[in-house]
């Protein structure tokens, strides 16, 4: 396979004005002898020239003044939302008529809301990071060995509230047929007849590992049931994640044109926290943003940056779960590689080399970058 010229990156750096004068001159001399750099430079110049040659809008004075007048009138009236698409109503009317039969024949059963009872603080368990509330008939026990805490559920339903795990700490729930790894969360789990029946997460995230099944991550607002085993986890209504006192997930606010300014405000605030390196607050704000505006264009950035914030905040396991969610939703996203690095680091640290290698597989090989190699660490050897 032909190897790319080592100096090809300088083409972009030169266009950005990021090279010193000396380096720029050196690159220009190099380009005279390197067909690859020359082609790249010419190709970039060509597409930029074509882009600038595209016809622009036909702005006439009347159009400009009309929009200006409407703008000032609406601003005076206090309007702030994006005007609706003009053909929205006729289109919806058409859609409604066309869909009448489909609606009558394809009614879906309503999805039951996730309900999690408030978790009572159990007295006398302050040595534990998890507070466990066993429902009537539940059989469970709890023990801690060094940095590892284990709650063993034999039968019934328990609700847990687990504080954030410090570096080196782990909290696991042993299930009859697998285990749950917790990274600071509030959730409920039910086992019956030797099988895990359901998991409902109110806050944070858990990793569910059942025998003969791939690991799955469940985040705030998500639920898993044994009956769903062949289906992916329920869509992620993430609005509950930052709430610390509400017992159940609040309804998700759908994105709507009128929510545009709110979304911009929220994202701006979250990014200010991120820029100020207030990682925990940034993670919370980014999480809330994704929950409230799952369809916003910034949602995938927000989700990755939430993972990044958690990592900076010293919560690598939580970062890994959010990053894994990101990969589920955006397997080819811009941040996929970086998200995979976060997942791999966490897997490597808990000795799960198979997972670390699997998640980084698309980026490993002869040309693996330094961060990918570092994320694999001993798992890569």
């Amino acid at each position, binding site marked *: 396979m032909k190897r790319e010229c080592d100096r090809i990156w300088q083409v972009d750096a030169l266009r950005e004005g990021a090279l010193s004068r000396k380096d720029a001159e050196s690159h220009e001399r190099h380009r005279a002898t390197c067909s690859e750099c020359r082609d790249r430079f010419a*190709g970039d110049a060509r597409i930029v020239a074509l882009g600038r040659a595209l016809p622009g809008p036909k702005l006439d004075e009347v159009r400009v003044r009309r929009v200006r007048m409407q*703008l000032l009138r609406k601003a005076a009236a206090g309007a702030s939302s994006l005007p609706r698409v003009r053909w929205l109503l006729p289109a919806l009317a058409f859609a409604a008529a066309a869909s009448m039969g489909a609606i009558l024949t394809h009614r879906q059963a309503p999805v039951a809301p996730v309900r999690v009872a408030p978790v009572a603080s159990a007295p006398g368990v302050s040595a534990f990071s998890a507070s466990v509330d066993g429902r009537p008939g539940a059989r469970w026990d709890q023990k801690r060995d060094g940095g590892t805490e284990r709650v063993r559920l034999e039968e019934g339903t328990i609700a847990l509230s687990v504080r954030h795990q410090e570096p080196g700490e782990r909290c696991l729930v042993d299930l009859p047929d697998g285990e749950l790894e917790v990274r600071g969360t509030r959730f409920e789990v039910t086992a019956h007849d030797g099988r895990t029946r359901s998991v409902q997460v109110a806050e944070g995230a858990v990793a569910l590992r059942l025998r003969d099944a791939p690991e799955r991550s469940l985040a705030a607002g998500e639920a898993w049931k044994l009956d769903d085993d062949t289906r992916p986890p329920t869509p992620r209504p993430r609005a509950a994640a930052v709430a610390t006192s509400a017992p159940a997930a609040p309804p998700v606010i759908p994105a709507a044109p009128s929510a*545009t300014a709110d979304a911009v405000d929220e994202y701006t605030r979250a990014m200010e926290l991120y820029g100020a390196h207030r990682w925990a607050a940034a993670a919370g704000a980014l999480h809330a943003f994704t929950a409230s505006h799952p369809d916003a264009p*910034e949602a995938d950035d927000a989700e990755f940056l939430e993972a990044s914030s958690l990592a900076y905040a010293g919560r690598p396991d939580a970062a890994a779960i959010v990053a894994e969610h990101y990969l589920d939703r955006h397997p080819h996203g811009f941040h996929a590689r970086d998200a995979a690095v976060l997942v791999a680091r966490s897997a490597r640290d808990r000795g799960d080399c198979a997972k670390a290698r699997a998640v980084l597989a698309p980026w490993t090989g002869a040309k693996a970058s330094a961060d990918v190699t570092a994320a694999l660490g001993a798992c890569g050897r």
Partner: protein
Amino acid sequence: MRAAPAPLPRHAGREARPDAELLSAVASGDLGALGDLYDRYHADIWRLVHRMTDGSGEVDDIVQATFLALPRLATVFDGRDSCRAWLCGIAVGLAARQRRGVARLLRRIASFGEMTPTTTTADPEREAGAREELRAFERALARLPWKKREAFVLVELEGLSMAEVAHALRVPAGTVRTRLFHAKRELRQVLARGDR
């Protein structure tokens, strides 16, 4: 070095108030200041939205909504000399939302009636007169995923710096750089293949 962007229309025969001062006035309800900002930047925003939406759809509405958002957002402006990049960020965000809303509705209608979503029709006059390569490029740009496209348009066509685009889109500069890299690679590949 990057070529300078197309010249921008600026105040004619009138003392220019700094953008930050105008935005501060807008935040306190001064409609005159809002009109001044519109006069100063409407051509930039129109051109940007046109480039991002292929000139189709509701360009006027998005331009209007961009400025209409200012009374609410003016307080978060960081006070730098020009608010052009910041306005561009608002405009592409609104264009993205409008596009998503329209696309969603089209998909829904198509699923109900088993129709195929229609694409925008090009202006026949322009089609006929345009050179083949320019048309190919226009199609390639239209097919580019949104985020790559906004990076390409903002950096290469609007002439904003990486830092300005990063700030406007509220993403790290490295993300902008990556998007731009992929955008240019895809565009180069399309032109190299001679896709028509």
